[in-house]
């Protein structure tokens, strides 16, 4: 079952980027084109979730939210540059389920889409499968914190997984040190430069256990990059 997301946003760049990103996760996404016949399109599409901007040509998002609510209980998430409490309250009063403020990141949008789909349609696993990051025979499961390579498995810590994921995603380019620190920085666990060094060392060790020698290369003054040594 493929879930459909209906994106009602008049900024073409944002809607395109959102569509591409949502589709990467195996969902289907449709961008509204005609802002006068939103309801017709909505009934044709029968989306499982609606992303709705507040400022739209003709009628605003609050209006469309009310119109959709007349006939449907589909989850509606607002995306807006307005972050005042009043706008958020207004959105919720008009029947929205959640409110995301611009500038937002993919992470936040995907997390919210997920949580709403899971709540309404129940089956989380079907919405988005378990994430697997594959690279040259390496398989990283960020949720399970498992790393597989040629039949062997290593168990990573959360920080090591974040580190490896960033390195894989940026390969073959160098990953900036500060970026890694930002990624590892937890809500209540503030990381120091040393923490990064320690985690890199430990990740190297775990790669070694999988017979990968010299997997992480240090680029002085810049950061780290993966080294395909097999």
């Amino acid at each position, binding site marked *: 079952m493929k879930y459909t997301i209906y994106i009602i946003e008049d900024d073409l760049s944002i809607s395109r980027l959102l569509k591409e990103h949502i589709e990467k996760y195996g969902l289907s996404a449709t961008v509204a084109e005609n802002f006068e016949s939103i309801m017709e399109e909505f009934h044709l599409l029968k989306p499982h979730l609606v992303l709705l901007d507040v400022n739209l040509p003709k009628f605003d998002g609050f209006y469309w939210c009310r119109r959709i609510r007349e006939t449907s209980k589909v989850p509606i998430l607002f995306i807006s540059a307005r972050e005042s409490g009043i706008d958020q309250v207004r959105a919720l009063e008009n029947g929205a389920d959640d409110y995301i403020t611009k500038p937002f990141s993919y992470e936040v949008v995907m997390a919210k889409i997920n949580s709403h789909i899971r709540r309404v349609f129940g089956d989380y696993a079907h919405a988005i499968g378990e994430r697997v990051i594959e690279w040259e025979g390496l398989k990283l499961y960020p949720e399970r914190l498992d790393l597989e390579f040629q039949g062997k498995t290593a168990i990573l810590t959360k920080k090591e997984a974040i580190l490896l994921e960033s390195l894989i*995603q940026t390969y073959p380019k160098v990953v900036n040190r500060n970026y890694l620190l930002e990624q590892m920085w937890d809500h209540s666990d503030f990381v120091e430069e040393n923490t990064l060094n320690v985690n890199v060392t430990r990740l190297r060790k775990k790669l070694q256990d999988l017979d990968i020698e010299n997997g992480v290369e240090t680029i002085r003054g810049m950061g780290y990059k993966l080294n395909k040594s097999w």
Partner: protein
Amino acid sequence: MSLFLKEHKSYIVIYYFSVSLTTFYCFLASDFTFLDVLYAFLFNSFILLVFLGWKYVNTKNVYVLLDSNFDAIEESSLDQGDSFWGHHISALLKQQYRLYERNMQQINKNHQEHLTFINQWVHQMKTPLSVIRLQLEAHAGEPYAHGMSEEVYKMEKGLNMALYYARIDAFERDFVIERIRLKPLILDSISQEKKLFIKNHMLPKADVDDTIEVYTDVKWIKFVIEQLITNGIKYSKGKGKYLTVSAYKTEDHTVLEVVDEGIGIHPKDIRRVFHPFFTGENGRILGESTGMGLYLAKKICENLNHKIYIQSEVNRGTKVSILFEHIQTDHN
């Protein structure tokens, strides 16, 4: 009364002068006795007194008005009675007030237009920033993309500042006082600024008891805390390694403190740091100051009924404290 007498002094003098002159003439010309003179004198005095009395009662409003200070501009347009002066002065003041009001309306309208423009403009800028940010995410971690995302972050901060500034006038319509726990709020604010901490090789310390609660508006107070954290980091560059955010209870208040170990504020500057556009010595050294951060922080705190204090020692660091009212706990 004294004003009234002062105004009519010359009338009284000229009146008695002419009465005296007339009676003197009569005295010389005819067989006026002293009693006749006295009678004429008293009779005329009586007439004068009645006239002045009537006039005073009639125009009393005007004299009270002339003798008073206004507390509000609206008071000047009150009716000043039906006397000659009362009538004319009321008309004049009313006209003045109308002109003044028209002027004020124009100024207010311009001000509102200006704020609306800033508001719209900030929101307009946020969409392109979102696009830039999303596109950068595709290159996350690459050194050049990282540098760019830091600049984008600065722009977001700047826009936010403009937005809060434009909004502070409409404060009454935009705040919700809730009972909240300080710890998550502080951790959130620290996380929000993690880029800045990492970039400046600094570490936050959060020293907050989990149970401390205050009454405040989350959105506004978060803006204030983030502002204080940003300042703390900015003025600790290369000097202090730690920024401490702590909260504790004293007898009278719940206190939230942001303490840095940075360059500190010169004593001659410290009284003015809450003034708008004031950047002082440190602003000159570091640049990139708008002088608005602490000003907004102070205004927001005033609006929320919190007190804010700043203490600093050059080269030792700065401590900003926000004092919240205690939450009344009911002991049943």
